[in-house]
């Protein structure tokens, strides 16, 4: 069937005057469409910022999070690898909130149970809890990833051991570095996922200072921005705890 046959068989013919009318009409609609598009784009970019992201976009990130977390199995395990697959040189990407040295003779993990009720836990005490190894593909929000090997106590085991059952029923865990300059908030289901660990070893050795000595968070279901190094304080809240990168326009959830 030729092109002409196609058009004569498959399409309706219309008169010249109707054609002119429709041409005018559809071009007016098109111009209106383009104009509306330009205005919509300008409107969006002129919206106020909500923590570094344009308000409607921040809202969308939150809706995405709600929609996805309600359908996801938050206990789902991250794919793990063999120890031999892990890299020897673990990439260091950020040093915000990091001290040059930390003395574990005086360092204590401060777990805030409530007002004026803070547990102070030494590294030795944490190391005496059941240890788990996690070898997984660590993913940075920048787009790179690395199979890395970490070990420590699962956060769930830790919280059970210190009878933080009431706190487990709250919505969020907040973490701060020793100097409190870097801080994250993590939703409780992700925090209690079985591969989330309070980590003190990488490649079977104590954490180097730039990897968060003496204790860091490893949370494989999140981007690296949530894996806070040199933990000083842990607390619990029903409201979203402040989050360093979320305040700078990133998604609060940052889940994988």
């Amino acid at each position, binding site marked *: 069937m030729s092109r002409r046959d196609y058009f004569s068989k498959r399409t309706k013919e219309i008169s010249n005057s109707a054609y002119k009318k429709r041409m005018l009409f559809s071009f007016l609609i098109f111009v209106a469409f383009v104009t509306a598009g330009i205005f919509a784009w300008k409107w969006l970019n002129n919206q106020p910022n909500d923590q570094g992201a344009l308000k*409607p976009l921040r809202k969308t990130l939150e809706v995405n999070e709600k929609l996805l977390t309600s359908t996801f199995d938050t206990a789902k395990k991250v794919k793990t690898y063999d120890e031999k697959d892990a890299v020897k040189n673990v990439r260091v990407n950020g040093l915000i909130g990091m001290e040059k040295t930390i003395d574990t003779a005086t360092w204590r993990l401060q777990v805030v149970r409530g007002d004026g009720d803070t547990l102070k836990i030494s590294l030795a005490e944490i190391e005496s809890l059941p240890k788990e190894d996690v070898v997984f593909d660590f993913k940075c929000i920048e787009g790179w990833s690395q199979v890395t090997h970490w070990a420590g106590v699962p956060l769930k085991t830790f919280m059970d051991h210190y009878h933080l059952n009431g706190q487990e029923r709250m919505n969020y865990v907040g973490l701060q570095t020793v100097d409190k300059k870097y801080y994250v908030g993590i939703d409780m289901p992700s925090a209690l996922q079985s591969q989330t660990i309070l980590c003190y070893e990488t490649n079977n050795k104590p954490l180097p200072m730039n990897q968060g000595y003496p204790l860091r968070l490893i949370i494989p279901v999140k981007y690296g921005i949530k894996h806070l190094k040199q933990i000083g304080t842990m607390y619990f809240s029903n409201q979203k705890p402040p989050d360093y990168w979320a305040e700078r326009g990133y998604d609060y959830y940052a889940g994988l």
Partner: protein
Amino acid sequence: MYDFLLQLTITSCSIFILMKKIVKKHPLAIRWFHWINFPVLTIMIWSGLLIYWANDVYQIKVGNTVIYKFFPKGLYNALNVPFHLAKGMSFHFAFAWLFIINGILYVAYTIFSGEWRYLFPNRKSFKEAWQVLLHDLHIKKYEPPQQKYNAAQRIAYTAIIFMGMGSVLTGLAIYKPVQFSRATFLCGGYEAARVEHFILTIGYVLFFLIHIFQVIKTGWNNFQAMISGLEVIKTEKQIPVNEQA
């Protein structure tokens, strides 16, 4: 109804009249999907570039020689790309919804309206597409017969749909590699998915360049049909001459 008398040719027994015929070419729905997709895909590519910049490791290499690095500094600076990862992500994960919904509606429409018949390649399309290419490059005079779209268009317009699906699949594989671990597995892993997502995007840009070139080359009548839906077709009509008259 016709516009007559553009040209008359009298032969011994009949008159050929070259006529202008106005026909409906593109349904309204397809025009909407097309013009919504254009800015949305542009925003997706732009915000994707803001994201890619944060880990811009891809390059074309032959041996140890870098032929092209994605992307040169000049391009980044011209488009104000550097240090906008968070902004890129916030736009990307919002406009992805529009891209996906518009895409689903378009595919559903072509299926239920029967338009897919003019869009989907048939048995002859792959052979004919080659002939179309040779014709377009002015190598051969012969142009294979076509319906609404020629064979090369059929393949291109169908391929772009599968590319869209590929972008959604590879996109989900990067976006939630734990929750959509099957998608990530299908793509050959997290890093492979990112490469594929990137290559598909390069594909859109190439598609766009060829598309624009072809639209300009084909001319106004064809272009305006994507806005008005109407196209002017010139046909010949044969009118027999009554010898008794």
